[in-house]
Structure formats: structure tokens, C-alpha cells
């Protein structure tokens, strides 16, 4: 009697993740649902740069220096890389509590509150922790059923709690949080440089060409210049302003969310407990700190059993059959396979010698479009519990 293979439908965990994110490339890319403004951002950057390369660069390369278009290309690729990295990566989403953890927290809360008389509202679910001699209140998230870590906040648009939540940026189509803040900052910075660069060389090109051909003739020969100058002029104010604002936040180790709420404004002698009181250290921590891995196991497997029974003949056939009939474990369990789904310890030690698949998701570089300062610095409709 031979073992019967059970038909197994393999789904990846990203397909079952709660929240309002969209996933692409089989879970490798993670974005918010509304992507229209992100496409506009891409269009503006790529469109303006294409016009620059088409109209200005040939003239400037010949009459000034070939380094001008080369540097523009390098800057353009860096901007696109940062935008895509910001847009496509997990901002630091906290997975929701599983039922056992949620129940444990509920029991702790009930034990702490004691008996609430009927008709009375139970006290708000807050935990106080002391961080660097400062009392910080941790709020309970009713959606995710967790006490949010310090600096985390729930984004109403993506319906996720995000660590070190900065803001939800419609221009990049994603939240900006712990994992992608540095990419977002570098995006605004590099885009400022690119905008200034294109704007400057547009003016230089028009001036140089007007000397020989006349101003009107120049504009007739390179109509793209007018469009570029317009886009760059309006972009400059918002992007450079935003870069300046985020530079200020980086130096003080604050988030946009905290700044808007006035969490560390100095009222009642409340100070930012996360700041190192040294702008260099703050800058280094935010921009050169460790690269945090995603705790959402998007690409982990969730194999489902069909209803057919499994026939086992003998122990020798058991091991391969077990691997095909396992409910949630991949063949080679990685660090992010839930403990319950891993094979029993003896098999795990056998598999420990095999190379483990990397749990990390390879994220595409994110391009970031500078959000208009008004929309970006707004707390972006996040629900604050």
C-alpha cells in the first residue's frame, strides 16, 4: 500500500494579511490601496527628466560639459531608487495579535481594572512606561488588539499599526515609518537636488542659447524647457520646504506625528526621551542606524490540506509524506515559520543542516515624490486611539 499524496493549495501569508494594503510580485511589494497620486509622482519625475534629457542635455553636453547629463542621470536613478524603495517596502507594520495573545492581554487588563460597576465605562486602556525618566503612555489599539509600542501609531488609511509612524504619504503611496523613513528622507533630499539642478541648467541653457539664437527662437526650438521650468518652480517650494522640515525632525529625532501632536513641545516639562540631545547622534541614529527587518512574513507559505485522507504505509515513507501533508510549514522551515507549524524537534534538527531560505523579502528600490507640504505634514486621517 503506497502513501497517497494529498493535493495542496499553496498560499502565501500576504494573501491573508489583514489591513488595507495591496501586494505585488507575490508579496515582495507592499503598498497602500490608493496609488493614483503615486503614479502622478512617477509621471512628473520621469516626464520632467525625459524632457531635460531630450531638450537641454544635447546642447549642454556639447557647449558646456558632458558631465552635466551624466550627473543628471546618476541623480535621476538615485531619486527613482529612493522613491521605489519607500513606496514598495514595509514601513514597519506590526502584525496583529493572534487570538491567544489578544486573550492574554484582555485578561491582564481585566485583572488590572478589577470589577467595573455596570453602567460605568471601563477606564481607558493605557499602560505607562518610563523611558529615560519620562513617562510615556502606551495606548491600546482596538483594531490590532495590542498595546502599541512607543512611537507607534495606527494608520487609518492602511489600517495597520506602524512602528515609529511618521505619516501616510499619498505621493509615495505608502506609510512612512521606522523601516522606510531614511529612504523617504533621502528621496526628498535627492529630489530637491534634482529639481534645483534641472531648474538651474534650464535657465543656463536658455541664457546660453538666447545669446546666439534669441530668446523666442530658443523657446521655439526647445518647447520642453517651458514645461520643465514650470514643474520645477512649483516643485521646488514644496520639496525643498519638506526636506528642510524633515531635516529639522531628523536632527531632533522626532516624527511628523509627534511634531503635529506636540508630544514633545516642552509643555509641562515634557521632553523627547528618544533624543540623544546631540544633533549628530540623532542624525546618525535615524539615517545610519541598523536596517530593521520586516516582521511581517509576507512570503511565508500557508499550505492548505484538501479533504482527502492520508494513508501511511511505513515509517520510511512517513518523512516525505509528512512534508507534503504539513499544514503550514514549508519544506525547509525558516526563522519565521510559526512554531506550531514546524515539524517536531527531531525533524527540525535534521533540517537544521540544510541551507535555510532567507526570510527577508527583497524590496525594490522606492522612488519618492515629494509630497506637497500641506498634505504630507497632515496626520493623514489616522485614527488615534
Amino acid at each position: 500500500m503506497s502513501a497517497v499524496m494529498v493535493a495542496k493549495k499553496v498560499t502565501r501569508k500576504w494573501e491573508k494579511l489583514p489591513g488595507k494594503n495591496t501586494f505585488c510580485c507575490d508579496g515582495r511589494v507592499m503598498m497602500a490601496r490608493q496609488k493614483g497620486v503615486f503614479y502622478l509622482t512617477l509621471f512628473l519625475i520621469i516626464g520632467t527628466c525625459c524632457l531635460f534629457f531630450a531638450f537641454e542635455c544635447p546642447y549642454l553636453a556639447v557647449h558646456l560639459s558632458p558631465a552635466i547629463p551624466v550627473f543628471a542621470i546618476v541623480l535621476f536613478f538615485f531619486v527613482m531608487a529612493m522613491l521605489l524603495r519607500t513606496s514598495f517596502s514595509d514601513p514597519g507594520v506590526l502584525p496583529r495579535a493572534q487570538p491567544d495573545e489578544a486573550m492574554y492581554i484582555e485578561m491582564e487588563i481585566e485583572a488590572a481594572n478589577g470589577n467595573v460597576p455596570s453602567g460605568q465605562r471601563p477606564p481607558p486602556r493605557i499602560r505607562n512606561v518610563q523611558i529615560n525618566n519620562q513617562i510615556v503612555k502606551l495606548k491600546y489599539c482596538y483594531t490590532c488588539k495590542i498595546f502599541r509600542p512607543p512611537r507607534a501609531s495606527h494608520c487609518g488609511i492602511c489600517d495597520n499599526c506602524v512602528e515609529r509612524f511618521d505619516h501616510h504619504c499619498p505621493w509615495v503611496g505608502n506609510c512612512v515609518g521606522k523601516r522606510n523613513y531614511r529612504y523617504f528622507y533621502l528621496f526628498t533630499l535627492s529630489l530637491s537636488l534634482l529639481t534645483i539642478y534641472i531648474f538651474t541648467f534650464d535657465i543656463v541653457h536658455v541664457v546660453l542659447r538666447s545669446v546666439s539664437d534669441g530668446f523666442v527662437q530658443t523657446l521655439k526650438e526647445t518647447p520642453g524647457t517651458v514645461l520643465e521650468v514650470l514643474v520645477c518652480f512649483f516643485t521646488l517650494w514644496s520639496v525643498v520646504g519638506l526636506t528642510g522640515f524633515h531635516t529639522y525632525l531628523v536632527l531632533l529625532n522626532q516624527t511628523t506625528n509627534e511634531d503635529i501632536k506636540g508630544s514633545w513641545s516642552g509643555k509641562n516639562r515634557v521632553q523627547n526621551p528618544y533624543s540623544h540631545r546631540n544633533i549628530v547622534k540623532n542624525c546618525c541614529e535615524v539615517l545610519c542606524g541598523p536596517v530593521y527587518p520586516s516582521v511581517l512574513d509576507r512570503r511565508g507559505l500557508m499550505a492548505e490540506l484538501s479533504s482527502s485522507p492520508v494513508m501511511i504505509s511505513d515509517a520510511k515513507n512517513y518523512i516525505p509524506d509528512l512534508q507534503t501533508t504539513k499544514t503550514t510549514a514549508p519544506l525547509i522551515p525558516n526563522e519565521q515559520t510559526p512554531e506550531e507549524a514546524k515539524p517536531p524537534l527531531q525533524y527540525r534538527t535534521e533540517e537544521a543542516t540544510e541551507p535555510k531560505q532567507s526570510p527577508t523579502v527583497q524590496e525594490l528600490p522606492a522612488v519618492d515624490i515629494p509630497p506637497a507640504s500641506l498634505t504630507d505634514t497632515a496626520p493623514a486621517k489616522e485614527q488615534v486611539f
Partner: protein
Amino acid sequence: MSRRPILRLFLPHARCFLHWVRSASLATKVFIQRDYSEGTVCQFQTKFPAELDSRIERQLFEDTVKTLNGFYTEAEKIGGQSYLEGCLACTTAYIIFLCMETRYEKVLKKISRYIQEQNEKIYAPRGLLITDPIERGMRVVSFSKLTDLKVG
């Protein structure tokens, strides 16, 4: 590695394995919360929970949690190596991370191996199972009390 007698209880039988898995997931769990006294760095509380009093010695529990805390401190250390990694990655527009493992990921693998080793050597013989914090979003370390170790 030598097979302990207790591990032979888990000898193959698909229905028993699933039964064991179901038992483990329904067993009582104790969650060790994060310790935020030093900020947002990943540290867990070393306070010994009363629910584990009958199962494991305090010292072993504290050693495990302190070692885990040490690993996370190493992973999140901001110093020469992290600056170098950050600057190098920045110059390549972070494309290098597509082929290179970050220091944090290397430490996470070490943590995973450590937890597996602790489970095998110390916790499984006492009827406990530690879950890697990364599976819970690095919010808690969960200790599952395995109440049902029967086969089939």
C-alpha cells in the same frame, strides 16, 4: 545529535502529529512583554512570571531572556559597523541589500538557532516551548506550556 527518549514520543504518525500541533496551540501560553525603559530598542522583561514557577528554574529563564536581550542589543547597536553598512548601502542606492544580508538579519538567524537549541536542551524536557519573538512582531516572547504529549 542524540535522540532523547522524549523526542521518540513524536515518532511519525500524521494524525498524532496534527494532534500534537493542535495541543500545542491550545496549551496555556505565557507572554513576556517588552521592556521599554531604555527606549524603543528591542529588550524583553526579565521578571520571572509566576505561571512558570512550577516548570522552570528562575535562573534558566533569566539567562535565556538576558541572552536574547544581548542578541537584540548587538543587532541594534549603533556604531562603526552600522555606519559603514549604512553609508555603503546609501552609495549603492540600497541596491546592495538585494544581494547582501544585513547585520540585523544575521543576528536574527543566530537568535533563531539559539531558541531552537534552548527548546531542545532546556525547555522541551520541561514541557515548555519558546516561540521566536519575530513571529509575534517582536512584541512578546511566548512560552507555551505543552500539556498534551501523548502519541495518537
